[in-house]
């Protein structure tokens, strides 16, 4: 067992963990943050995407004990008391979800992309989210939702 401290959605957490546990399991089982979804546990589907130290990662592929001092953002950390994050709102407005199981991962991918490239082309969006699988939507509205925030920063704050 090893004890680490890290920040999750702005809150400090102190955790004592056995070394084989993944960030995904710790988020879901220990911290009750079930927004990160398990789809394959092999880094193939992207449903477990979170933002680790500013970069999107498959949390199923990250060992939690390595995260001493790290900063983790999950979908629960987006938005705030005043409402949804503009990208979350754009997913609602553009009907970019059906079953919604890939949605937290897709939204965090969109956040990560827009943070480093505020005006991506449609092809850049598709390329960036191509590691995240969606079985319901055919991706069209997901791309549209990300593009709407990229293009219409005014409209979406």
């Amino acid at each position, binding site marked *: 067992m090893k004890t680490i401290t890290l920040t999750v959605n702005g809150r400090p957490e102190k955790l004592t963990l056995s070394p084989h546990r993944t960030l995904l399991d710790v988020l879901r089982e220990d911290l009750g943050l079930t927004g990160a979804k398990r*789809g394959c546990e092999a880094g*193939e589907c992207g*449903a477990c995407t979170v933002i680790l130290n500013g970069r999107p990662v498959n949390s199923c592929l990250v060992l939690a004990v390595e995260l001493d001092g790290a900063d983790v953002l999950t979908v629960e950390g987006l938005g705030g008391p005043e409402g949804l994050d503009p990208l*979350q709102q754009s997913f*609602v407005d553009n009907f970019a979800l059906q*079953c919604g199981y890939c*949605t937290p991962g897709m939204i965090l991918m969109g956040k990560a992309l827009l943070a480093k490239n505020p005006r991506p082309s449609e092809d850049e969006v598709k390329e960036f989210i*191509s590691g995240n699988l969606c*079985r319901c*939507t055919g991706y069209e509205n997901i791309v549209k939702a990300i593009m709407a925030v990229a293009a219409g920063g005014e409209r979406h704050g």
Partner: protein
Amino acid sequence: MSQSDWRSNRPPAGGVQEIGRVAPRADAAAKVTGAERYAADYYPENYVWAGVKRAGVPHARIMGVDTASARALPGVVAVLTHKDIGGKNRLGIFEKDQPILADGVVRHCGDAVALAVAETKEALTAALAAIRVDCEPLAAVFAPEEALAAGAPIVHEGRGGGNLLLESEICFGKAREALAGCRHAVELTVELGWQEHAFLETQTGVAWQEADGSLTIVASTQTPFRDRLELAEALGLTLDRIRVTAPYLGGGFGGKDGVTVQGFLALAALHSGGRPVKIWYSREESILAGTKRHPATVTYRLGCDADGVFQALDCRLVFDTGAYASLGTEVFALALEHAGGPYRIANVAVHGKIVYTNNPVAGAFRGFGVPQAAAGIEQAVDELARVAGFDPLAMRRKNAVGCGDTTPTGVVIGRPAGLAECLAQVERHPLWRERQTWREGAPPFKRRGVGVAAVYHGMGFGPAVADYANAKLELTAEGRITVCAGVADMGQGNATTCLQIVSHALGQPYGDMELVLPDTARTLPSASSSASRTTFTYGNALIGAAGVLRERILARGALLLSFQLLAPVNAAEVDLLPGRIYHAPSGRSVPLKVIAGFMDAAERTATYSYTCPVNRQAIPTGGNLRLHGYPHRIFSYAVKLARVEVDTLTGEARVCDFLSCVEAGRVLNPQLYEQQLHGGAAQGLGYALFEDFAVSGGEIATGDLATYILPTALDVPDMETVSVAVSEDEGPFGMKGVGEVVIDGVLPAVANAVAEAAGVRVTKGTLTAEKILAALRAGGREATR
């Protein structure tokens, strides 16, 4: 243990939404924030993990299962076999042939042999590894023709009929003679592989015993009410001892149409020392144990006269259901009913067999047999058009069914049918009109083709099994409306549509209503979320319930007003407005909250039972398909168009544009409707081009998402959609089901485009680059500019 508030969902606030207008999805806000709790997201206090020991061999006799060493491991709560099951240990719909835990024989690699319950995932893994299964291998069968050969190993020993699950024939006129007399005729055999549902949320759930010993199961399921029936019989429990709830599913597509983990959950919860249990398949286990789309071999002979009028069809469809029937006979019946496509053909012989093998289990998958049938007839139509020198779209228009026509399988279309309009729309569409210019614009070493396919899809359960729903609405003590949904929402958005329907019917703000998701304790039996029937059937029941509730509110309101006015008030003079009733003659209003205060709970609860009308036509052929759904009454129609570019150096086919033109009645919510068109097309493109499911000797070679390739955002083209809205007056507000017709015909539209581009038709399974390259090579077109 019970939780009281966990099934309430409230849609985003908004004004009164009308049918036909875009209403935001009721589930969107909770899904984008991660707040929505799927079955996978339940971690009950003090829970233990349950997991399954899989057979790993395709056919074997079980000589013994040694659970002692597993039981002795630290952290292991229980290790169970079929001996621990009190009931019949059989699941299934018509053919109850699938054990929860194998009892004597293993019939496919994914069969469940034992169930372990442990404190942690690590202890569970150790327990499963420590279970020793002593098996004696049996000769196995992996293809229908092998399975039907004399002396073949029998998958279900002692079953009358051996490996033949069902055989049927639908015949009209003299197909073979007429074919011989046709001016033009073609023959074509198409082989279709399995398709994995690959919902992102694998099969999962939790269960616990209540204080009185009854079971509560929270599962990712399309069929909470039928699950309860199946579980009661298999486990020897009474219905009222089982409660099943269905939160929003992380995808279903038919793969959760029936029991998946629920039997394991129930059994584990009965042996966990009173602790809640959780089960959650890994992706590999999901692929190993879950059902898939049926592989099929379809052989078509189609002929026409000199004018291109279809004269005769002779076809054979052979389906492999794998080790268990699941919904195979129903899938098979729908495939046969649709075998001839949406055309008028007088001389028809449709023959089919569905066969047990030791392969993975096939079952319900969006499209339900029609994608396989469409793959055959729609490629045959294109071949015939090519041979006879007709334009493929014009040939389809010439032969298309309309209202009053008879389908090739003898079904008289008695309801509005928009296929001709769909074909006309596609003919006018630039993607079709400008196809020649587009083809000629192919860059070097690329060849381009444009393909179409026309399809139809029968809605609902057919004539024998009642397609019913029981809607329930409540006026809460606070004067709000609660909609108790009896059918699961696996992502298609029917919960939203239910709220829209009630909002419209009662004139109450859409955003001000509460929703209760399916729960056998709180909502009423309304059959499955499947068969393109979910919104049609439940929506009709909801309209009925809304009528009952409206009448009660107005009657009670009129009474209250008559006390206030000291004069009799007729309920007919009172209107129901958002949040209140209004009496125009006096100008008075009474808030719904006040009215609710004068009604007891029973009066505030309105229920309504609706059963779909069925096709009562007496058809003299295909009689043994009737129980399984043939014939249907209402069909949705669609035409699909694919523009495909083939690389002559690599064989890779890229879909550049895809058009879905769909007639599924009136559209209740244009955005949700379009979502179905997008999703069905993408899943169909996966079936056509990417999802090459590989099985060898009963073992799956594509057992994870690294080897079973789903389309990504880079693989799906821009998708155009056209809606042809013809009102179906039996549907709620004129709608028909759209969930399946959207995937039918995608594969043949792509295949027809590839055939045009490559000059050679690929007819074996997924259209991978390797196969297309081989076809190009065979046709002398490899590396041609």
